[in-house]
C-alpha cells in the first residue's frame, strides 16, 4: 500500500505493538503528528518537556521490559531529549526515539530549528539513523526496535527529515531482518561455563554479585534458584535491587559506596566473585585494585566490552544471562560442591553486628523513616521510582524490595529530574492494576521536571511524589561537610516554593507533613484518591547517608553509623 512517510511511522509503531508514545510536537515533526491525530492504534501522552518524554518512555520500559517510544521535533526538541537518551544509554534501557529534522534540501544550511541530531546522539545511543530515502524508512524502524531490544539493550534514535515524512512510497514492513554486522553473542561458550562451574565447586567463599543485567534479561527466578541450590550468598548493585528479594536468606544487601556492611565485607572476603550482569562500576568497587582482591572472578555479560574493561576476570563468559544461569543450574547435578554454610553464617554475623540502621527521632522525621514506612504500608504493592541524591540511596537501602522492576532509578547517569517523569511512565504501565507508582524525591530534584505534574493530571496518572525536604542539595551538602570542611557552596535550598500549593495549582493533591502521624494520614489519603499527589515531608536537615566508602577507598574501609536501632 502506498502512503506518506508520516503514515509509515504510525503504521510501523503499530506493527511493533506499541501501545503508548510519549512526545511533544513541533515544526519538523508535524506530518507525523497529523497522522497521530488520525490513528487509534496507540495513546499519545503529551509531556511538557522533551527530556521528560524520553524519561517517561524509560520509566515505562523499565517497568514493563518493553521498548519505550518517544517522538520529538528537531533542534531544541531534540537537544532537550539528549539527557534522556544518555540516561537510557548508561542504564541499557530499550528505547526508540524518533525526531523530526529539517527537510533534506535544507540540511547543512543552518535552517530554523536545525541541529546535527545524529552527530549529537551518536555517543549516547546504541545506534542512530538519519533517514535519507523514504524507501528505507520501514526497514530502519524495524531495525531500530530490533537493535534496541536485543543483545545489551539501549536507546536507538531515528532522525527523519520533514520532506521524507511528506513523500509517498509503497509501505512494506519487513517481517524479519538480518543484519550481517549485528549478531549479539547470546549463547555462552560451553568450555568456559564448565571451567567456571569447576571454579565454583572448588571455592570456599563464593559470592553472587548481581547487576542490572539480571533485570534486563528477566532472570531473577533463575538467579534465586542458583543461589538456593548451591547455598551461595548474593549481593546486589543499585541497578539490581529487587532481583534477589530482600527477604531471601541468602541476600546480604546492596554493595558499593553506600552499600551495607555485610555486602561490602562479602565482596572484600570472597574467594570467588561471580558477576552476573554487573559491570564493576566505580560506585560499586571503590578502590579498584582492592576490590574482591582475594577472589578469582567469573564475569558473565552479554556485552564483550564490559568484560575486562576495568577488572580482568579469570573466567569470562559472553552470553545472555538467563540462558547462561539456566545452564549453570543444569550443570549442578553432575558435580560436587563444597558446603558454604560457614561462609553464609559469617555474613549473617556481619549483618547482625552492623545492620543498616539510622537513629530515629520523635522530634523530627528522619528522612529514612518515610521510606521504611511506605515499605511497611505498601510493600510489594508499590513500584518505587526515585530522583538522584541522598533520598535515592536511602530508598535503595531502606525500602523492602521483593521483585525485579519494582525499583526504577537513574543509576549510570544519575539524572536529577528523573523521578517524576519515570514514575509517570510507570503509572502508565500500571493502568488496570491495583499497584501504586511512588516517586521518592528531594527538594532539589523535584523542581527539575516539575512541569510534568501537568501531564500526570491531564492523563490521570496517579504518581505519588514523596518529597523528602531537607532544604539542601543533600548529597552534595554531605560531601561538602565530609570533604570540603563544611563550606556549603550553593547547596542551601532555603528558598523554596510552597509544595502543597504548587501541586494544587496543577490540579493534584498536596500535603505538607511534619509528624509521623500526619505522614500516615497523607499517604493513606493519597493512595485512596488515586490522583497525582505530592507529600512534602519536612525531614531532619543534616542526616548523612551511611555507611559510606569515601572515594578512592576500599570497600572494607567504610564509615559506619554509630549507635542507632
Amino acid at each position: 500500500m502506498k502512503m506518506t512517510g508520516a503514515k509509515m511511522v504510525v503504521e510501523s509503531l503499530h506493527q511493533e505493538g506499541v501501545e503508548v508514545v510519549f512526545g511533544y510536537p513541533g515544526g519538523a515533526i508535524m506530518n507525523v503528528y497529523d497522522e497521530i491525530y488520525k490513528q487509534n492504534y496507540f495513546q499519545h501522552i503529551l509531556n511538557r518537556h522533551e527530556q521528560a518524554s524520553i524519561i517517561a518512555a524509560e520509566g515505562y520500559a523499565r517497568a514493563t521490559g518493553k521498548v519505550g517510544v518517544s517522538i520529538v521535533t528537531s533542534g531544541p526538541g531534540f537537544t532537550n531529549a539528549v539527557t534522556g537518551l544518555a540516561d537510557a544509554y548508561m542504564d541499557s534501557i530499550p528505547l526508540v526515539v524518533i525526531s523530526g529534522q529539517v527537510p533534506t534540501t535544507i540540511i547543512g544550511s543552518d535552517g530554523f530549528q536545525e541541529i546535527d541530531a545524529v552527530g549529537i546522539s551518536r555517543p549516547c545511543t546504541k545506534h542512530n539513523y538519519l533517514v535519507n530515502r523514504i524507501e528505507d524508512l520501514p526497514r530502519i524502524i524495524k531495525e531500530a526496535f530490533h537493535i534496541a531490544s536485543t543483545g545489551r539493550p539501549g536507546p536507538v534514535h531515528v532522525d527523519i527529515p520533514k520532506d521524507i515524512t511528506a513523500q509517498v512510497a509503497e509501505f512494506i514492513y519487513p517481517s524479519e531482518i538480518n543484519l550481517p554486522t549485528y549478531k549479539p553473542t547470546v549463547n555462552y561458550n560451553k568450555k568456559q561455563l564448565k571451567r567456571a562451574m569447576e571454579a565454583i565447586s572448588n571455592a570456599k567463599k563464593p559470592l553472587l554479585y548481581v547487576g542490572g543485567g539480571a533485570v534486563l534479561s528477566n532472570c531473577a527466578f533463575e538467579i534465586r534458584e542458583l543461589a538456593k541450590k548451591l547455598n551461595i550468598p548474593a549481593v546486589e548493585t543499585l541497578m539490581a535491587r529487587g532481583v534477589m528479594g530482600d527477604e531471601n536468606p541468602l541476600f546480604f544487601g546492596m554493595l558499593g559506596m553506600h552499600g551495607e556492611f555485610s555486602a561490602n565485607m562479602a565482596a572484600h572476603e570472597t574467594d570467588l566473585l561471580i558477576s552476573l550482569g554487573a559491570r564493576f562500576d566505580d560506585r560499586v568497587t571503590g578502590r579498584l585494585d582492592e576490590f574482591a582482591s582475594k577472589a578469582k572472578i567469573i564475569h558473565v555479560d552479554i556485552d564483550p566490552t564490559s568484560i575486562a574493561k576495568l577488572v580482568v576476570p579469570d573466567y569470562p563468559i559472553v552470553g545472555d544471562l538467563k540462558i547462561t544461569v539456566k545452564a549453570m543450574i543444569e550443570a549442578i547435578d553432575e558435580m560436587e560442591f563444597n558446603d558454604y554454610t560457614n561462609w553464609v553464617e559469617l555474613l549473617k554475623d556481619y549483618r547482625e553486628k552492623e545492620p543498616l540502621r539510622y537513629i530515629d527521632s520523635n522530634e523530627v522525621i528522619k528522612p529514612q523513616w518515610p521510606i521504611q514506612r511506605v515499605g511497611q504500608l505498601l510493600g510489594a504493592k508499590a513500584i518505587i521510582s526515585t530522583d538522584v541524591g541522598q533520598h535515592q540511596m536511602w530508598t535503595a537501602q531502606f525500602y523492602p524490595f521483593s521483585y525485579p522492576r519494582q525499583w526504577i532509578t537513574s543509576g549510570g547517569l544519575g539524572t536529577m529530574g528523573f523521578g517524576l517523569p519515570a514514575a509517570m511512565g510507570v503509572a502508565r504501565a500500571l493502568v488496570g492494576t491495583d499497584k501504586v507508582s511512588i516517586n521518592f524525591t528531594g527538594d532539589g530534584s523535584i523542581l527539575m521536571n516539575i512541569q510534568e505534574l501537568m501531564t500526570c493530571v491531564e492523563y490521570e496518572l496517579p504518581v505519588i511524589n514523596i518529597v523528602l525536604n531537607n532544604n539542601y542539595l543533600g548529597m552534595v551538602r554531605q560531601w561538602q561537610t565530609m570533604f570540603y570542611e563544611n563550606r556549603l557552596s550553593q547547596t542551601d535550598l532555603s528558598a523554596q516554593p510552597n509544595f502543597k500549593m504548587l501541586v494544587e495549582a496543577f490540579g493534584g493533591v498536596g500535603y505538607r507533613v511534619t509528624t509521623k502521624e500526619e505522614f500516615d494520614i497523607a499517604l493513606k489519603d493519597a493512595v485512596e484518591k488515586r490522583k497525582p499527589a505530592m507529600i512534602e515531608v519536612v525531614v531532619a536537615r543534616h542526616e548523612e547517608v551511611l555507611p559510606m566508602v569515601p572515594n578512592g577507598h576500599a570497600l572494607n574501609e567504610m564509615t559506619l553509623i554509630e549507635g542507632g536501632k
Partner: protein
Amino acid sequence: MNNFNHYYDSEISRQVISVIVLNEHNVLSRIVGLFSARGYNIDSLTVAPITDSQYSRMTIVTTGDKRVIDQIVKQLNKLIPVLKVNEHKNVIEKDTVLMKFSIDNNLSDIDVIARAYHGSIQNVTDEAIIVSATDSSARIMNFIKVMQKFNPLEVVRSGIVAMER
C-alpha cells in the same frame, strides 16, 4: 592479587587494525568518535571502498597496552555497522608520500634517493617537481627526513594500508 597485573602492566605497543564497515554516511564519524570519546590514539587512518561490495576497509594504526588494544577491538566490534575487526600480527604495510621540491635543486640527487625508497619523479613543472615513494612506514619517515636537505615545499602522506602475510 587478581592475576591481571601482566595485563595492566603490559608494554605500550603499536597495533595495526583493519575494520570492515558498511558504507553508510556517518560510519567514519562513529569510528573516529569512538576513539576520541574513550581516549584512544589514532596514529593513522585510511579508508577505501571494497570493490563490488557494500563494505569499506579502514586501516587504523593505534598505540596502547594490551588492555587498551583489546578494548579498542571489542568496542569497534560493538558498533552496529562494523562487520569485522582484524588485529594484525604479521603484516605487509605500505605508506605513500608525495613531496614537492623547487626545480632549482639537484634533480639527479633527488631521483637517486627516491629510487632507493622505491620512488620516482611523478611530475615536473617550470617551478617544481613532485616525487612519490611507497614503502614501509618507518622507511618513508626516514625518506622524508633525508629529503629535508632539499627544502621540500610540501609533504603529503597517505597513511598506512596493510595486508596480513
